[in-house]
């Protein structure tokens, strides 16, 4: 059994419970144990634009919680992953470590920070996943969206290809679903500018929704709650602005994987998807 401290962040536990639920249930199926980080806060990323140092200290405090538990951290949000990874690297620098200590925090054990999807890829592995699939989703065609902070900046993550990523496509393929090839794979969802200029953010999100529609996919696969806000919650806005119809369900990867592992639709929280996925469920044969 593999054990990790689960870092939820701000958005997932209140706005994306279906992501959390499906991740926890998939973990159970795969013999992964999540330990709660009760006193964990926001990762710090939301105020990085205001003060990077403060956001790093907030992130480092979260890392210290896992460090005291002597566990590595699993995250569900791309931005949490990048923010905590950055702080983890900074803790090795004397100057930053000193500031961290001044606040009374401690870092007894080194902590590795990884996105859950990366853990599935690197620490569980495609072979194990392939064997665990009970209900191959051969009838589905999807488009995989990585989001920026899953693998960029590469100096921080040292994982996957920052220009043409492939790990999520491989993980999707394991479920039996087809992950379509397309250009502009690394395009940003626009989430970070939503609060600054909504029209720009929606235009950025529209780019991939448009590609998804042209590729005739059953769903867009996301691994970050911010990306889902852009592609799912703001899908209607993109439809209005660009005078088109999308109706593309946005599934979190653990929801897709969960269905292929034979979990029922409640166990992956499908009813919480804002763009209804009933056509997809019908195809898969999940009542």
């Amino acid at each position, binding site marked *: 059994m593999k054990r990790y401290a689960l870092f939820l962040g701000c958005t997932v536990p209140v706005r994306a419970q279906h992501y959390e639920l499906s991740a926890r249930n998939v973990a159970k199926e795969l013999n992964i144990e999540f330990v709660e980080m009760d006193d964990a806060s926001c990762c710090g990323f939301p105020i990085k634009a205001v003060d990077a140092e403060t956001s790093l200290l907030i992130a480092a405090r979260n890392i210290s919680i896992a460090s005291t538990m002597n566990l590595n951290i699993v995250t569900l949000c791309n931005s949490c992953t990048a923010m905590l990874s950055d702080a983890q690297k900074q803790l090795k620098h004397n100057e930053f470590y000193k500031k961290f200590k001044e606040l009374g925090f401690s870092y007894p054990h080194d902590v590795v920070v990884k996105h859950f999807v990366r853990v599935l890829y690197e620490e569980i592995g495609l072979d194990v996943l392939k064997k665990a699939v009970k209900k191959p989703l051969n009838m589905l065609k999807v488009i995989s969206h990585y989001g920026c902070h899953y693998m960029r900046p590469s100096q921080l993550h040292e994982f996957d290809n920052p220009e043409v990523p492939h790990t999520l496509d491989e993980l999707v393929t394991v479920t039996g679903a087809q992950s379509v090839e397309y250009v502009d794979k690394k395009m940003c969802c626009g989430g970070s500018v939503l609060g600054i200029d909504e029209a*720009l953010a929606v235009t950025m999100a529209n780019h991939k929704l448009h590609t998804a529609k042209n590729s005739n996919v059953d769903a867009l696969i996301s691994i970050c709650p911010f990306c889902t806000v852009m592609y799912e919650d703001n899908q209607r806005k993109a439809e209005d602005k660009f005078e088109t119809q999308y109706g593309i369900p946005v599934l979190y990867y653990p929801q897709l994987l969960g269905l292929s592992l034979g979990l029922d639709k409640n166990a992956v929280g499908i009813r919480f998807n804002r763009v209804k996925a009933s056509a997809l469920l019908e195809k898969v044969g999940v009542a």
Partner: protein
Amino acid sequence: MIELKNADPNFKWEIIKREGGEGLLKCFGCSDCAASCPVRYFDERYNPRKIIRLTLLGMKKEVLSSPFLWFCAHCHACTERCPQGIMVAEVINAIKNYAAEQDYCPEGYKMQLDLLNKLGRLYEIEDFDLRKREKLGLPPINKIISEVAKILEHTGIIERVHSKNAHANLKSETRNTNE
């Protein structure tokens, strides 16, 4: 028009000494960052190369007061392409940080800062949320993480962002150049 007579030669050093600002001097202006930038692709008013060049030239007021500075999505596409190995997104972030302290912090960020101070989180957790979590079999979560306020107090960021006259110098300079 770039009026070099208004240039502030210290500006670039202010950025370089900040968290993330280190690489600034290495920029040779190739524009690879701008060519890879998704925001620029959709809105030409934003250009990371221009922000960096203006910073190097000392065009403090132009850079700090531009609303387009905040258009950067921090996606790091530019960082991957910069032939000088500059973490471009971090440099832009350092400039935003400096702007935030010079009274140019967007209201949305101030609100997030206040929420983190009050809750340690971005969203207020209502009893409704906790009941929903319980129904789904998800473990309870703490409503308030008070340690975050301690960190904010320690770095003094709220005061720096909110204090109106912190940098009256820049403001009066701005006024003079406008006259």
